[in-house]
C-alpha cells in the first residue's frame, strides 16, 4: 500500500509527522477519508477526532484536533490547528476538570447570554479530548 506524508502542525510545534496510508477527518462539510494521491483540497475542520491509518492496515493513531484546516497536496497532507494533541499526550484529569467546569457554566447560562458559546466550545473540546483518550484501537 502506498503512503502519504502527513503533518499535524500547531502554534506550539508539530504534534505529528509521519507517513500514513489514510487520514480520516471531519470537515465542516462532512467526514472525509483521504488516501494518497488525493486531489488537492483545502477544507476547514470541525472539533473532532482525526484517525491516521498506517500502511500495515492495522495500526491506527488518534489525534484530538480542535478545529483548523486540512490541506491536501499531491505529495503531503497538512492539518493546521490552533490546538491538537495525540492520544498519548492528552491530560485526562485536566480534560475531566474542564468538562465539569464547562457543564457547570452551561447550567447557569442561557443560550443567548454572553459566554454561552465559549462554554459550549470548552465542553466540546474537553469531550473530544476524553473521547480520544479513551478510544479503543
Amino acid at each position, binding site marked *: 500500500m502506498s503512503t502519504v506524508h502527513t503533518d499535524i502542525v500547531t*502554534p506550539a510545534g508539530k504534534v505529528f509527522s509521519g507517513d500514513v496510508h489514510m487520514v480520516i477527518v471531519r470537515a465542516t*462539510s462532512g467526514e472525509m477519508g483521504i488516501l494518497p494521491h488525493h486531489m488537492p*483540497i*483545502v477544507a*476547514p475542520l470541525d472539533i473532532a477526532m482525526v484517525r491516521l491509518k498506517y500502511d500495515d492496515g492495522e495500526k491506527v493513531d488518534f489525534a484530538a484536533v480542535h478545529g483548523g*484546516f486540512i*490541506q491536501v497536496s*499531491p505529495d503531503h497532507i497538512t492539518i*493546521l490547528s490552533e*490546538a491538537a494533541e495525540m492520544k498519548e499526550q492528552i491530560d485526562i484529569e485536566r480534560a475531566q476538570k474542564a468538562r465539569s467546569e464547562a457543564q457547570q457554566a452551561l447550567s447557569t447560562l442561557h443560550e443567548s447570554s454572553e459566554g454561552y458559546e465559549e462554554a459550549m466550545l470548552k465542553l466540546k473540546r474537553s469531550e473530544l479530548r476524553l473521547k480520544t483518550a479513551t478510544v479503543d484501537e
Partner: protein
Amino acid sequence: MPSMRDIKEKIASTKQMQKITKAMQMVSAAKLNRAQTTAQSFEPYAAKLREMVAGIAASANNQGGRHPMLESRPVKKTAYLVMTADRGLAGAYNGNVLKYASELIQKNHRSKEEYTLIVTGKVGVHYFEKRGYPVAFSQTGVPDELSFDDASDLAKRTVAMFIDKKIDELYLVYNHFVNAISQKLLSTRLLPLTDISGEDSGGEKAIYEYEPDEDEVLEKLLPLYAEGQIYGALADAKAAEHAARVTAMRNASDNASEIIDNLTLSFNRARQAAITQEISEIVGGAAALE
C-alpha cells in the same frame, strides 16, 4: 572620610544586590531560551498558514470575490497594538516601545478620535492611562511561557474589532528579537491583509479545491491567520523582553563588581590609615616616656 564600618556595610549591601541581579540574569537567560524555543516551534505553523492564505487569496482575487479582511477601506480609526512587559528592570525595553508608539501617534494623528490603543503589559497600561490616551482594552499578566491559549483571547478580540469595523487598520508595535544583545523596534501593519499574496514558495503550485467553497474557507482562515500573527508577535516580544533583561542585569552585575572593587580599595586605605595612625600614636607615646 567614611569610617571603616560604613564602608564595610556598603560593600555587604552591594554584594547582596549583585547576588540578586546575577540571579535575575540567570533566570532571564533561562526564560530567553524557552521563549526562543516557543518562537521557533511557531515558525512551521506560521509558514504553512501564510502559504495557505497566499494561495487562496490569489485565487480569490481572480474571481473577484473578496473578503473584508483583505480589503483596504478608508481609514477613520487606526488601532495600535503596543506590546510592553509587566515589569521593569529590562533596560530601555519598555521605554523604547512607549516612546516610539507616542511619537508614531503624534506624527500621524491630530485628534483622539483617529486612533485607539490595545496594550499588553502593566508598564504600557500605566503609561497610556496616565497620559490619557484612549485605550480600547488591555491585557496584563501575559505569562513568560507563552502558549497559544494565552494569546488567543487578545487576538480574537482585536480581530473582531476589525471585522466589526470599529477599527479600519491595525498596527503592531513591539520590540522584535534580533539576537541576544539587540532588539529592533517594529511597527507592522497587520490588518487589512494586503501584502500576503506576493510570496512565491518556488515549489510547484497545486490548484486547490476548496470545501465547501472559497468564501467559507477564507471566512475561517483569515481570522486564524491574523490571530496567529498576533501570537507570533507576542512571542517575539517576549523573547526580546528576556534578552533585554539579561543585558540589563548583566550590566547591573558588572557595575556592582566595579563598585565593590572601589569600595574595597577605600576600605583597605582606611584600614591602612588606621594602622599607621595607631603606630604613630604608639611611637609618639613611647617617645614621650623617654
